């Protein structure tokens, strides 16, 4: 493993000297995400394997190239899971890509996002240095919280070499209910329920149908089923997996797919296209050929932002443009870790 690491360090140093861009890449399952790719791929898949896993500590540390599926199998064998339920988007998905993309799945609204479970990381920065931040303990406030900052940085700050994550036990019981409701009613219910002590672990609204997943102690799941009503869904697990992996038929059409991240109670933005709601109302997918500017403006007015998630034409920019003061800070942050701008230039923002 040492030789693999040293080779990566050499590549990075050479790239920095020659100002030749690199793009760290595990399984390539999230190549579609973000702006146009630039730079030679830096394959991280050989830097793989669990470094430390003590189930009773609720922490796992693994190298970036570790396949996400392998990591999840190791956790499942001990009755544990990654609480943020990350999408794989392909069989090759790796831990490094999962953290770099910072994408969370259906459990996000109740459990938290990738960044909430990152406890520590080792980073190969743009100078070819190996830096260690955070650690393997739940509480750690020594130094700035750089490891959480890496979640969602899209590999623009360096090669995320190793990550320590907090893990949780799998719920003892799980069931999915389906209720019929118009959209405004469904949004109202989701917000209302989230303010009640109910074991809701995922929600999805599409075409007049609200799906609700309950997870927790058997008694609590049973009691909540009584409270919420609706019909039990036969293959709940299949449904949430298809939603997470975007293999659900909703995601099949060719129209550009927008990801609107909004306050959970925001009124549905009046935009052309078909909507799918997750995360108790806080995540709205929109398959729409509408104008980028109109969609972004609607998201902004609602108090959130819109990402062009999947599209052939990324010319409007994948991510919502930032104001000048915010952009200046982001640029300076990039320069701290990658002064020669070799990692994934432009993938997050043209300036980074």
């Amino acid at each position: 493993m040492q030789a693999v690491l040293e080779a990566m360090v050499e590549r990075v140093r050479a790239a920095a000297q020659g100002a030749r861009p690199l793009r760290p890449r595990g399984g390539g399952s999230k190549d579609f995400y973000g702006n146009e790719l630039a730079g030679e791929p830096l394959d991280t898949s050989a830097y793989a394997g669990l470094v430390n896993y003590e189930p009773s500590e609720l922490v796992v540390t693994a190298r970036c190239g570790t396949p996400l599926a392998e990591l999840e199998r190791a956790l499942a064998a001990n009755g544990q899971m990654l609480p943020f339920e990350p999408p794989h988007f392909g069989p090759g998905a790796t831990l490094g890509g999962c953290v770099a993309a910072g994408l969370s799945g259906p459990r996000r609204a109740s459990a938290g996002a990738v960044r909430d479970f990152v406890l520590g990381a080792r980073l190969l920065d743009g100078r070819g240095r190996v830096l260690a931040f955070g650690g393997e303990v739940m509480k750690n406030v020594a130094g700035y919280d750089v490891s959480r900052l890496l979640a969602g940085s899209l590999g623009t700050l360096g090669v995320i070499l190793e990550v320590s994550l907090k893990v949780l036990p799998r719920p003892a019981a799980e069931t999915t209910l389906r209720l019929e409701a118009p959209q405004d009613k469904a949004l109202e219910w989701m917000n209302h329920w989230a303010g009640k002590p109910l074991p809701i672990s995922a929600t999805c609204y599409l075409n007049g149908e609200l799906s609700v997943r309950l997870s927790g102690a058997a008694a609590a799941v049973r009691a909540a089923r009584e409270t919420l009503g609706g019909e039990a869904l036969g293959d709940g697990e299949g449904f949430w997996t298809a939603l997470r992996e975007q293999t659900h038929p909703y995601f099949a059409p060719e129209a550009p797919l927008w990801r609107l991240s909004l306050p959970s109670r925001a009124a549905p933005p009046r935009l052309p296209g078909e909507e799918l709601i997750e995360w108790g109302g806080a995540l709205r997918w929109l398959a729409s050929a509408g104008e980028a500017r109109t969609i972004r403006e609607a998201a902004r007015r609602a108090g959130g932002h819109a990402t062009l998630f999947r599209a052939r034409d990324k010319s409007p920019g994948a991510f919502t443009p930032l104001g000048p003061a915010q952009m200046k800070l982001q640029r300076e942050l990039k320069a701290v870790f990658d002064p020669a701008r070799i990692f994934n230039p432009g993938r997050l923002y043209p300036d980074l």
Partner: protein
Amino acid sequence: MGKAVPVERIDASRQREVVRRLREFLPAHSVLFEDEDTRPYECDGLTAYRRAPMVVALPETDEQVRRVLQACSALGVPVVPRGAGTGLSGGALPLADGVLLSMAKFMRALRVDPVARVAVVQPGVRNAAISDLVAPFGLYYAPDPSSQIACSIGGNVAENSGGVHCLKYGLTVHNVMRVRGYTIDGEPVDFGGEALDAPGYDLLALAIGSEGLLVVITEVTVKLLPKPQLARVVMASFGDVETAGQAVAAVIAAGIIPAGLEMMDKPATRAVEEFVRAGYDLDAAAILLCESDGTPEEVEEEIARVKQVLSDAGATRMTVSRDEAERLRFWSGRKAAFPAVGRISPDYYCMDGTIPRRRLGEILRFIGEMERKYGLRCPNVFHAGDGNLHPLILYDANDPEQLRRTEQFAREVLEKCVEVGGTITGEHGVGVEKIDQMCTQFGSAEIETFHALKHAFDPVGLLNPGKAVPTLARCAEYRGMHVHGGQLPFPDLPRF
């Protein structure tokens, strides 16, 4: 980079200049500089370190904060932000050539949205006041540091404060959605939002726990959670602390995430029992408090499992709280542990290391050795669920020799925490107190990166300089003094 040696004397003409400048936009009562007025600000909760500030500014509006920062930037005067002053690491220790920026007047709750479950408050609002404010909606703010009746949310954000329910409900970073404020130049910043994520790098995560070195916060949006219908706590006694430690691991291994899981050793329960009469078992070498919350069905199921696991793990006695009053009484002892210890000793020094739970026995044995080595007593309270230790070294500050021994004792324990894979501070922050131990935890490259991050927000280094991150020179000196077996704890780069 902060100055290595802070100025200790106030320069009177400089003071006049700063006062005159601040009074251009602050009312007279918001600018304090007379000795008796600045004295109350000379320390925070870490009382061993004191220094009077040159000037105290007490702005009341965002615009005033912005102008204080702009004025200080223009004059090159360092600024130390302060919330309620309950911090335990000296993060709000003033500078004799600086302005202490007190946010105490930012006391208003700006908005509560019970449907979206968020509250927007000013930074001076007390932690417990948020939960009180939203209680009518069946909601609460989860992080509950022991000082919650006094500490402010702004300070919680600066320190990424925890509490006794972190394992299940997270730290401040997991429960704050947005912060707004200003950089040292008076530029407005707005990190996070009321959606669940924001575009670009996660500056919210970076700002939380940055100990007032990156931005001054003027508004905080917190996430509110539904109050669990019921909570009950199991109090279990153990014949020795290591068995209690193993019981903690057994609870987690059984797939249980308790709402709270705390341990106290016998010297701590003895001190507490005299003070609050919580009903602790004084014959036990250690007690565990294990809380379960949720619906009545969930709690009943979980409590039964917890009792089984603890009993299998060797608990000698168990009591389950019968009602809310009893539950609060069990907790009252834990929450009053620091003041209770304060009654049995002239002074105490609270440590805050975190360790992997499985190393608990080893650390407790080590602390026992240190008690003998330094001739000082050290009761232990412990956030067992998340591995965060608070050993309290008892000493008398009037005896400089005892203070010196205390500091050495603490240093050895914190370095041991790092050695076993933990950290020097779990929730109290580095501040001025643990700045040398940062050199044990991090190598030069990381320390350099921290300074570069600081520089990105504050190029001149005027915001809370000298705290949280040591200079490289200081680390070189410190490491030179503390070489273990001819090896530096972290040899320099390249560090494969």
